[in-house]
């Protein structure tokens, strides 16, 4: 089981701020493919990966990073703090 978190408009499109998933995905990209195959709201949220960022256990990461050992995956748009 892995915690998946969504922020900003990703959260709004998917409709929940977080969920627990049972996945066999090897990489972040695999996990996204699983989600997109599930429901349209995921397809909508993950339509353009260039406008998305991912953090693994709260560290910015790449979509090709392996999920082995990861407990928390977060998807969000580019940050706009400051």
């Amino acid at each position, binding site marked *: 089981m892995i915690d998946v*978190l969504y922020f*900003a408009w990703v959260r709004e499109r998917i409709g929940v701020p977080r969920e627990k998933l049972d996945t066999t995905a090897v990489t972040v990209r695999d996990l996204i493919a699983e989600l997109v195959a599930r429901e349209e709201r995921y397809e909508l949220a993950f339509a353009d990966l260039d406008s998305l960022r991912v953090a693994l256990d709260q*560290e910015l990461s790449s979509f090709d990073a392996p999920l082995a050992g990861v407990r928390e995956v*977060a998807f*969000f748009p*580019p*940050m*706009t*703090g*400051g």
Partner: protein
Amino acid sequence: MKLQVQAEPFDLGAESNAFAAGVLGAGAVVTFTGLVRDNGGALAAMEIEHYPGMTEKAIAAMMDQAMVRWSLADALVIHRYGRLAGGEAIMMVATASRHRADAFAAAEFLMDYLKSRAPFWKKELSADGAEWVAARDEDEAALGRW
């Protein structure tokens, strides 16, 4: 070093005075404050979302890097989240060093990283509705100078 991520407003003046009072060895203090902008007339409100846990970690790492790279006497970051009214301070950064070039560079470095690498997302609320603020290409490009 002081790092606060909070929903409550903060007092820019009080924070600036307290910071300056604590850095007697340094001659130069730089502060940056980000305010909710008035977008052409009506004051906008803003909703700021963040990623609790990651936010603090990411900012602390930036501050550690700045402290070492510019041998700062001290550094401070305060960033708010939640609902903010027009004119309110969103966040502030303060840096102190012996000579001014270091304090300026470190404050700009912290701002560039905070903008694009700390997990905050701004939504502007106006009479026309709510809109997520898009990241600016200049902000991402600014990271290239460090």
